[in-house]
Every structure is written in structure tokens, then in C-alpha cells.
């Protein structure tokens, strides 16, 4: 079987063999791709956790303790959803400010996004504390384990996002918009929006599905 070769059969003295002008690669493109790939692995991580939650969300996994219907209320999750969404919106405004090369704009909007992220975490902690106080902690039953670990893993991602924002505020204030800093801001936007999407899944899969 001969695969048609679209190339000449061998080199000739006037073939182009070297490309002195071509220097390596587009750093920004590689970094963006790399970050998308990392997000892919993060998505798989959440897929695993959602699968675990789906498996353990049955009456016999509650071991006599509370099930989803007893512990979630769509309204609890609603405030958190609001916080996440407005935070994403604020951070998008920060990237718009970055396009306009406005350091104060980026710092202002990133700070707003950061504070809203903190609000989200605060609500989540309050929620967890209330549950644990009722004796419905993660060590109560298989179902509660899945509930806590799924949501806490997302919360941990949010904490890292907040830390990242803090670093970016300092870096933008100090050095402005270098290539690295721009790349980081763009990747942070991706990260933050991804965490918001995961939260939407949590809200739909845990809060809405659980309550109704």
C-alpha cells in the first residue's frame, strides 16, 4: 500500500533546510494552552467528585442521618451563587481595564472580585459550621462525606483564586503590565470563571436536585 507522498522524494541542493529567522515560539499562546490543559485536569477532578456524590446520594448512604432534602435549601446556595457571579463580573471588568492599560482600574475591580470571593467563602463556612453544630458533619455518613468534600474542594479552589488575586494586585501595582503579568491575569480570569461554572453545577446538582 503506497500512501501518496505530497513531498519530493529527497532533498536537493536548493531545498530550504534551516530557518535562522524562526526563534522558538509564542510564549503567551503556549501558556494559555497550558492553562487550558490544566483546567481540563481540574475538570476531571471535579467529575470524579461529582460521580462520588452521585453514587453516595442515596437513602442507604445516609446511615440514618440527614439526606440532601434535610440539609440544603436553594436559598442558601442562592446567596453564594450571587456572590460568585458578581465576583466573576467584577473580574471581567478588571480585564477590560487591563485592555485599557489602567492600573487603578485593574486594582479596583480585582479588589471587588476578591472581596466578593471572601463573601462566598464566609457564607460557605457559616453553612458548614451550622451543619456540624447539628451533628451533621462529614464523619456522620457516606452521603455527608461526599457533600462536604465536594463543596470544600470547590471552596479550596476559591481560596487559591483569592490568593492569586491578592498576588496580582501587588504585581500590577509594582510592575504594571509585563507580558508575564498579562498572561497571569488572563489565566486567572479563566480559572475564576471555571470555578464559577463548577459552582453552577454544584448548585444545580446538590442544592436544586437535593431540595426538590
Amino acid at each position: 500500500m503506497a500512501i501518496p507522498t505530497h513531498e519530493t522524494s529527497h532533498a536537493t541542493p536548493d531545498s530550504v533546510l534551516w530557518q535562522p529567522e524562526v526563534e522558538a515560539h509564542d510564549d503567551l499562546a503556549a501558556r494559555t494552552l497550558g492553562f487550558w490543559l490544566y483546567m481540563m485536569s481540574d475538570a476531571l477532578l471535579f467529575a470524579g467528585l461529582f460521580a462520588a456524590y452521585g453514587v453516595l446520594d442515596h437513602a442507604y448512604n445516609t446511615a440514618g442521618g440527614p439526606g440532601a432534602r434535610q440539609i440544603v435549601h436553594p436559598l442558601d446556595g442562592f446567596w453564594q451563587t450571587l456572590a460568585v457571579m458578581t465576583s466573576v463580573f467584577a473580574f471581567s471588568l478588571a480585564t477590560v481595564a487591563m485592555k485599557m492599560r489602567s492600573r487603578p482600574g485593574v486594582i479596583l475591580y480585582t479588589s471587588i472580585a476578591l472581596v466578593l470571593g471572601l463573601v462566598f467563602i464566609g457564607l460557605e463556612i457559616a453553612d458548614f459550621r451550622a451543619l456540624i453544630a447539628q451533628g451533621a458533619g462529614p464523619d456522620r455518613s457516606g452521603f455527608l462525606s461526599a457533600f462536604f468534600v465536594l463543596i470544600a474542594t470547590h471552596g479550596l479552589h476559591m481560596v487559591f483564586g483569592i490568593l492569586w488575586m491578592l498576588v496580582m494586585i501587588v504585581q500590577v501595582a509594582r510592575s504594571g503590565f509585563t507580558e508575564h503579568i498579562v498572561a497571569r491575569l488572563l489565566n486567572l480570569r479563566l480559572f475564576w470563571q471555571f470555578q464559577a461554572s463548577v459552582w453552577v453545577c454544584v448548585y444545580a446538582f446538590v442544592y436544586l436536585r437535593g431540595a426538590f
Partner: protein
Amino acid sequence: MPVHLQGPWSPLLGRLSLHAIPYNNSIILFAFALAAVAAVAVIAPVLYFKKIPYLWREWITTVDHKKIGVMYIIVGLVMMFRGFFDGLMIRTQQVLADGPHSPHFLDALHGYIPPYHFDQIYSSHGTIMILFAVTPILTGLTNVIVPLQVGARDMAFPYLNAVSLWLTTVGAALVMVSLFVGDFSAAGWVGLIPLTELPFSPGVGVDYWIWAIQISSIGTTLNAVNMIATIVTMRAPGMTWLRLPIFTWTTLSTNIIGLTAFPVLGVALALLSADRYIGTHFFTAGQGGNLMLYTNLFWIWGHPEVYFLVLPAFGIFSEIIPTFSERPLFGYVTMVAATFAIGGISWLVWLHHFFTMGAGPAVNTFFSVATMFVGVPTGVKVFNWVFTIYRGRLRFDTPMLWCVGGLFLLLIGGLTGMMLAMPAIDYTVHNSVFVVAHFHCMVLLVAYAIFGAVTFWFPKVFGLQLDERSGKLFFWTFSIGTILVFVAMFGLGFMGETRRLDYLYDPQWLPLLIIQEIGIGFYSLSVLIFCWMLYVTLRHRHAHVEADPWGTSRTLEWLTHTPVPFYNFAVTPQVNARDELDWRRRGGMDRKLPDGYAPVHMPSNTMVPALIGLFAFGFGFGMIWRIWWMAGFSIVAVIVLVIARSFQKTPGYILSTDEITAMERRVEGSSIVAEQPSRPPLVEAEVH
């Protein structure tokens, strides 16, 4: 809310105390002595020749993909030796402990190893061989080869690459430490559930197993990101997708598997750690836990992982066979398609590892048929190799021998896999050593590919050829060992020997066990010959090696000097054909050098990755022994390091035209271990 533990615990040392050191176990003492001798043998010359600054500058802080690859391979080979030793001990125990009248030594009732210790040995054997030997070696090979094959200066993220290396090394180090401080998991390399839960494994063994794998698999995931980004964005001009060498294609497929599968393993282990550390009930046998959840999660990673291992091996075959058949690879496009078909199907078959666990006929049928489908693309590959060999001008240099041997193993392993894919058969042989023999054919096929690859690419990296005579001797002793051990093992499987036995009750198995023991004797001999091969090679290291030492290589990595200079290509090559070097050679242009040189941008060395590794070790060790301050301090240190590094502005340095020209003139002086010019790094400027 950490769980309540049995036994002592102190805030300063966690669960660690002098009792953790098994100084009264003669086997471990022997292992310790061996390790100490080896360590002295390595460290003493380093100190004597004052090589620490050299090691620090050229290896520990390096971001060069070739050196990182070499270090991966060294870590893997060391661990493979340890895994081999475990294997030797397992075989020897089984041949000694057959039948009620079998002899007993030391403090064992049968054989010479008591059951609990034996369980640790086979658990560490499997864990080490799959995760800390073969995986790092393959990662190392792809690290060395792929950037060269696509005509790039380095990986897409050189710094991240070093981080991956050190995380993998930390995992391996934790496994080694478990030998001397505390103990290792006794629950199999798959982490049999609920045996790994705290009530049944209250010691630190399972924790060692968890954290060693968890930390190193973060490294593997990051490496997958890096590899994919390299292949997608760093190809030389003219390197279209259909000109990509097959090894690079298989690396791409493998790393897509790695990127998607390892996070699932991470979840499985993280949930298990939650059970063990904060008392959740994911996999407990009560309180609403679900045992099958663990088994599914583990194999959702586990099966793709076996293809993560075997695909690079297929890529290696596809490079070596054409070179030594002096023909282009037969059916390039079908080879690429088969590679991705295997990668895709590998996601849909995991349940064949537990057909017997009552999933029901419909589910078993689906997974049985899906499993058999893997045979189709695998068959395509085998036929492609055979047709490449057919009417080729064959030469049996050592790399080719390993490939042909590997093809035989693929045949046996694949066909027995097909048998296991039928639930009706699997019900009778599941958990027998028949399965063990099947997958050893498969992973040995990977080992064969690795040895072939090391011999094949060794001259490219080090500028000297491995000794052929001892290389062939190594191949033959290793192969005789393989045949004796595993043919006998298939037989024992049919005779009903189940796996993981520290005591064998049927004296009729003895003849086959003895054959296996002879086989492992051959393996031991081959290890010695391997060391001899390295020695002979080093003694004759002055022979000059061409850019293409085999004379018939086909791909881009053979175009640049041997040994490869640290900047890979002085000038980026233009790719004109699928087998570029072959294409140039046929036109008589393979020695044609570029007309002139241009400045080259290189990344600077950094010690941050090694420090991250150090603290990752601290974190792992702290978690294992529940030394909370140590774990907490280490993880904070890692985060601080990452942040601090992001403040550092080191975009690398520039090699000027004159320097490149000078180095290209005296080629030998510029190998991968040559000193890089030191100079102040560039300063990052704001973009406008």
C-alpha cells in the same frame, strides 16, 4: 477534626518514635546495609572529586529537558532495581513455602518472610514497578526525545518540567524511606478496599502508599500538560501534523490519557485519605460508605494507566523497527489512528478488572465487548510493524532485538488479555497468577521497549555507544528469565494458584515454582550483565560517535550533533518530509550545516523546583506521620516559593551569534553536560 488514633502521638513527632525503625528485622537490616553501601559509593566520589558545585549547577538547578529526562531515567532505574529485588524476594519465598513440610527460616512459619512483611513486599513491588520505575523512565524518555523530534529548543515550560521531576522523585523517595522508617502498605498495589481503611490498616503503611503516589502523580499530571503544550506549540516550521514522528504521536496520546486519568486517581486517593484522616465514610464498610466506588475510581485510572505505559512503548517500536529495517514505517496514518483509537477505548474498559464483582450480565457484556475492541487497533499496529520488517534490510543491533522480543510478548500478553476479556473465562482465572502472567507480559513488553530505547538513544544523549556484546548478552539472559518465569506462571495459573500467596498449599506446584526460581536467577544474572555493560561502555568511552550513530535513523533528533548541545539545534531546522533525516540523506544533504547563526534565547537555571521538591517531601512525611506542624509548614513554604518565584523576573539569557558559532566549531565541548555560559539574566520590560 482528625480521627482518633490508637497508639501514641506527640505534637512534636506525631506518630514517629524509635519503634518505627525496624532495627530488629534482619532482612531490612541487610537492605539498609546495601542502601548505605550504595549511598557511600555514590556520595564519596562526589565529595572526593569536589563535584557538588557541578551537580548543583548542571543537574539540580537545571531546566534543560535532556538533563531532566536523564534524571527521570536514573530515578526510574534505581527504583526498578529496588522493585526487582522485591520480585526476587517474592519468588524465593514462594519456592521455599510450598506445601506443609516446607522449610522455615528466620521468624517465618514457612519460607523466610512472615506474612505481614510478605504482603508489604508484593505491594511495594507493584507500586514501584508501575508508578516509580516504568512511568518515570517513560516520562524521561519522552522528555529527552520529543523536543528534539519536533525541532524545539526545550519544552514549552522548562521550569514546570523541573518541578514535575522533583515531585516524582519525592514520591520515589517516600517509598524508599518507608523501608527504613515505619512500614509500607500491605494492601496490594491497587489498595484493596476496605483493607486500606484505618480499622484494618492502622499503621502508617497505607499513608506512605497514598502520599507517595499522590505527590508523584501531581508531577505526572503537570508533565502531561507540558508535553501536550510542547507538541502542539513548539513544532519546527514545516512539521505538519502528518509529519510528526510516531513516537511523538504516541507521546501525545499517552499524555492526553495522563492528563485525564491521573486526576481520577487523585480523587480516589484523596477520598481514601479523608477517610483515614478526618473520619469520613466514603469507602468504609458501614455508615453509608461504598466499597465499589473506590474500586471503580481506581480502575477508571488504572486501565488508562496501562495504556499510558504501553503507548510510548509502541512509539519506540515504531522508531526502532524502521531504522533497522531500512524502510519507512508501513501504514503511518493507520498507526496514528490506531494510537488514538487505543487511547480512546482505554477509557471504556475499566470494569474488566472486576467482572466477578457482580455488575450483572448487561454491564459485563458491554465492558467485555469494549475490551475486545482494543484488539483491533493493536492488531493494526502489529501488522504495520510486521509489514515494515517484511522485505526490509534487517539488522539485529541490540535495540532491534529488544523490539522483536517485545513483539512476542505483545502477542502472548494480548491474546491472554483477550481470554480474560471474556467474563466466562475470567470467572475461573480472576485473581489467579494467570492474570499476573498476562499483565507481566504486557509490562515486560514496556520494559523491553525501554531497554531498546535506552540502547537506541544512549549515544545521542551521551555521545558514546553502549557496548553491543554485553548488551546482547543482557538481552538473552533477560529473555530466558522472562520465558522461564512467565511460561511457568501461566501453567500455575491454570493449576489454580491464586495471587499474593505467602504460603502455597499444593506441593504439586513445586516443579513449576523451581523453574520460576531458575528464571529469576537468570534475571539476577542479567542485572549483573547490565552493570557490566555500563562499565565496559565507560571504559571505552573515547570512540567518536557520529550525529547518526546507527547510520539509518530517520527523524530530526539525529540531525543535530552527538552529544546534543544544550541548545539542541543551533538553527531551527525546516522540515520537508515525514522522515526528514532520511529525506536529506537520500539527497546527500544530511551533513549540510546552516550558513550562519543567529542569537538564541535560553531559560536560566533555578533552584526553586528542587526546593519545592524538598518541601513536598516534608509535607508528605509530615502527613504520613501526622506531624501537623511539619506538614503545615511545608505546604505554606511551597505556596510561598511559588508566589516568590512569580515575582522573580528572569526571562532567561541570550547566546550571541559568536558564542554559538564558537560552540558549533568545537562540537564535543558543547554536550548536554557542558558548562553553560554564566551571565546576568535579561531584565523583563513592560510590553507596550
